[in-house]
């Protein structure tokens, strides 16, 4: 059993005045204060692009020292965009094994450090540098060609796919930690600047900085927000070109299958998933079988995943699209958001009476996938 007893979130934004360590400190302090925990056994830092944007090796030790946690055990976890949930998985394993009883997990990354062209280049390294990223795929080359493939295979038009970012912006409006808190229409998505046709700037995440932290404990003595029942994962193909069915995220299918088998979980009330691009969100919904193949965009447009819809409420935070996506921190944000939903304390769009939740975090188009099943307590 692992319980979330504290969360700390920094609003995703361009924090030019704050270093990686400062952001990590602010999120950690908030998490420790909210859990009223005295001391932690381990600090696990999830960070990815910071190695390129504010270079520091052995980051976790330096973050620990800079926040006065001298002598604490520290580990840095780097799994690209999935680093945050991979860090939670590591923390849970330490607690389950008895090696730790209280762990601070903090995810942090900054995307505003450099001009966007340099950030795009660095983000392309999330993809395989020996195949896809050997070429100039930029920010969204692989997502763009998958989006075109999806539209052709399932005969889905571009406008139908634009309901996803519109929903994410709508959801983010009430989230004080979201970077983009304004509504957009689906039509506006099509008119936006092209990033990797057919996808536009409004199909992808804003370049912001952020940090999120969790206090995880093995014993639920006081102030528990939620329980993390299990975290599972799997690796996938290095390139979409190797997959016979690139419109299914194979690593996610395997990871989710493992999670269902281990926990016996059924349907969930709330989901926070990895919509790095519109097409990523759609493919995740279909890989999880929340809809039939080729039908997720239409279901989103019909409100199936909105509050009051038939499906689970998906990304009430606004998702990567509108909350933002500080690469290594994102999975930690997602777990914190679901924990707050299950405790009835999420400060944005609430999913009333939510008792169970799912977090989905993947790197690139599924080089690896991580999933977590969470439950309300009491």
């Amino acid at each position, binding site marked *: 059993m692992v319980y979330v007893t504290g969360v700390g979130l920094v609003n995703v934004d361009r924090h030019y005045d704050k270093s990686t360590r400062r952001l990590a400190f602010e999120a950690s302090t908030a998490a420790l204060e909210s859990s009223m925990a005295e001391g932690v056994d381990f600090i696990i830092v999830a960070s990815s692009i910071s190695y390129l944007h504010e270079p520091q090796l052995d980051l976790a030790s330096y973050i620990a020292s800079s926040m006065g946690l001298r002598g604490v055990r520290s580990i840095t976890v780097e799994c690209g965009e999935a680093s945050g949930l991979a860090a939670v998985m590591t923390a849970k394993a330490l607690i389950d094994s008895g090696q730790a009883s209280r762990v601070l997990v903090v995810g942090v990354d900054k995307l505003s450090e450099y*001009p*966007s*062209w*340099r950030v*795009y*280049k660095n983000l*392309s*390294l999330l993809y395989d*540098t*020996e*195949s*896809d*990223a*050997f*070429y*100039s*795929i*930029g*920010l*969204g*080359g*692989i*997502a*763009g*060609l*998958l*989006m*075109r*493939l999806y539209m*052709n295979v399932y005969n889905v038009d571009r406008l139908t796919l634009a309901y996803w970012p519109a929903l994410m912006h709508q959801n983010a409006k009430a989230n004080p930690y979201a970077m983009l808190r304004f509504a957009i229409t689906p039509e506006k998505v099509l008119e936006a*600047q*092209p*990033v*990797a*046709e*057919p*996808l536009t700037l409004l199909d992808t995440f804003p370049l912001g900085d952020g940090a999120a932290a969790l206090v995880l404990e093995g014993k639920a003595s006081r102030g528990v927000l939620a329980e993390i029942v299990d975290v599972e994962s799997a690796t996938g*193909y*290095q*390139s*979409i*070109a*190797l997959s016979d069915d*690139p419109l299914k995220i194979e690593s996610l299918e395997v990871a989710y299958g493992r999670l269902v088998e281990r926990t016996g979980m059924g349907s969930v009330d709330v989901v926070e998933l990895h919509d790095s691009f519109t097409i990523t969100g759609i493919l995740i919904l279909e890989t999880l079988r929340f809809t039939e193949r080729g039908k997720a965009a239409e279901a989103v447009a019909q409100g199936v995943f909105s509050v009051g819809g038939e499906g689970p409420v998906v990304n009430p935070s606004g998702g990567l699209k509108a909350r933002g996506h500080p690469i290594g921190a994102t999975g930690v944000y997602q777990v914190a958001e679901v924990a707050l939903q299950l405790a009835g304390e999420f400060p944005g769009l609430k999913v009333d009476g939510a008792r169970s939740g799912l977090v989905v975090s993947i790197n690139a188009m599924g080089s690896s996938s991580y999933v977590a099943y969470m439950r309300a307590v009491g």
Partner: protein
Amino acid sequence: MGEWSSARVWRSRVYRYRLIAGRCRSCGRAHYPPANACPYCGSRDLDEVELPRVGRLISYSVVYATPFEDRDRSPVVIGLIDLGIARLVAEVVDVKPGDLRVGDRVEAVFRRIAVDGNTGLIVYGIKFRPVRVG
């Protein structure tokens, strides 16, 4: 692409200059670029096979959000290409993005991939272009 040392460029020359793929002796499937084990069955019993140089475009994206060094040739077209026994992702050149169609026949051409701004190292490799009709 990221930073490449001259040793790294040299190591990858064979499959970058010719379309040499790995082929699994166990399950028979091919993969590009060659890996240490078969991505499908995990076997390490592999040999090499040269891929056909002509294939079909399964899908493509016109990338505007390119790194700085590619700005002068932006937008860059990135294609998913079916070569029969294997697929790969590669850049598609010598075409106006608006003239490209899914299903087009494309052929491999040898081109410059990148120039390292610090060292002047030039990286070459294979791109694809539409097959001219007639």
